[in-house]
């Protein structure tokens, strides 16, 4: 049981770190390339430990992110929920893929979140963002192998299952 508690702590800490990375200030020209850290971490835990991390945790993290970013309550939550659902559905197929193909699947999931997010922005009456808006998922895709390896090491170290 003690490993289970350790594991929970590890998951919580990685998610909190991802939240902090999300609000890390970047220079203006770099801001559109900020990857969706929280989403990447959430996808990993959904795929690696689908019986522990899922829609509920995704939604709660989304609400926290909304408050941190000063967005509409639920704007990120809805995207994270839906992506968590898809990664739970896909986890058995994706887990066995080699890393590059995994990265492509992750790109799709990241794009889904951006799509939902742009829909919310449009519904609120904001002008459409520039094309750089779609750069973040690409950056996320390229970062995926590293994130995967780091989080896998974390998972093995703390024997999260």
């Amino acid at each position, binding site marked *: 049981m003690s490993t289970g508690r350790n594991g929970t702590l590890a998951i919580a800490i990685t998610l909190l770190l991802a939240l902090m990375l*999300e609000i*890390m200030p970047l220079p203006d020209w770099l801001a559109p390339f900020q990857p969706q850290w929280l989403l990447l971490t959430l996808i990993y835990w959904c795929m690696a430990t689908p019986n522990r991390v899922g829609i509920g945790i995704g939604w709660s993290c989304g609400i926290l992110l909304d408050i941190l970013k000063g967005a509409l309550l639920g704007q990120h939550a809805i995207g994270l929920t839906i992506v968590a659902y898809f990664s739970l559905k896909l986890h058995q197929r994706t887990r066995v893929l080699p890393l590059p193909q995994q990265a492509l699947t992750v790109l799709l999931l990241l794009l889904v979140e951006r799509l939902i997010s742009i829909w919310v922005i449009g519904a609120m009456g904001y002008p459409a963002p520039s094309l750089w808006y779609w750069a973040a998922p690409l950056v996320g895709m390229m970062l995926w192998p590293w994130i995967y390896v780091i989080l896998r090491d974390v998972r093995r170290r703390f024997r999260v299952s």
Partner: protein
Amino acid sequence: MIAAIVISLTLMMVDHRWNHLERVRSALSVVTYPLQYVVSLPFRTSDWLSERSSTREELFSDRERLQKENLELRARLQKFEALEAENVRLRGLLDSSFSIGDRVLVAELIAVDLDLFRQQVLINKGSRSGIYIGQPVLDANAVMGQVTHVTPNTATVLLITDAQHALPIQVNRNGLRTIAFGTGIIDRLELPQLPNNAEIEVGDLLVTSGFGGHFPAGYPVARVTEVRHEPGRPFATIFATPTAHLERTNEVLLVWQLDTTNSLEPQENTQEAEQ
């Protein structure tokens, strides 16, 4: 899954239309404030270090510059005080109300990244310092925006260039009143409600008119940069650039109005002193 989506959608609707969720927000900020604090810590430390490590010569030149500036400002203030007294006396003769003064508090920006699509910043003073929703925020030059969310230790400021911000203004030169809308671009405001024959020129200073009751009258807002008269359209296309350094400020001023009654003749307000 469906439940979570429905809850998110309802939350968004409620949050967008009404203000009922403010309490939820400030309750959850207990969790998020430490995160914001930790993220801004390295930036704060580097600021502190660069302050500590500045050389003697830099400090001397800084001091000299500030002394000069102080002298200049004092000279201008003398004139301003005389004018204010005169203005109050004249208004007393006319029996019209006049806001006597504003109370001001300085706050610093917290170095965290907020949503890319909204123009907003986070400041390090909250409801503990008496900040309230809708409060005007200025920088050293002009109006920056207004407070939209308050938590005990922080507050979110919506800038005047946000696409959902509108600000009642007037042209300082002739008192022409209109509303300035944000465009979502950091250095651009739009004035869509002026007819083609309105008397407005490139370079005109726009100041707050005090209408709507949120902002005190007479603070500078923006300078007109572009006026286009298109014969086919009933309204002119007018753009302005905010005089506040929205991208570069580190410190902001929060204003409390001591007397909230609006003056009826805004064009005769206190900004004579600023000309």
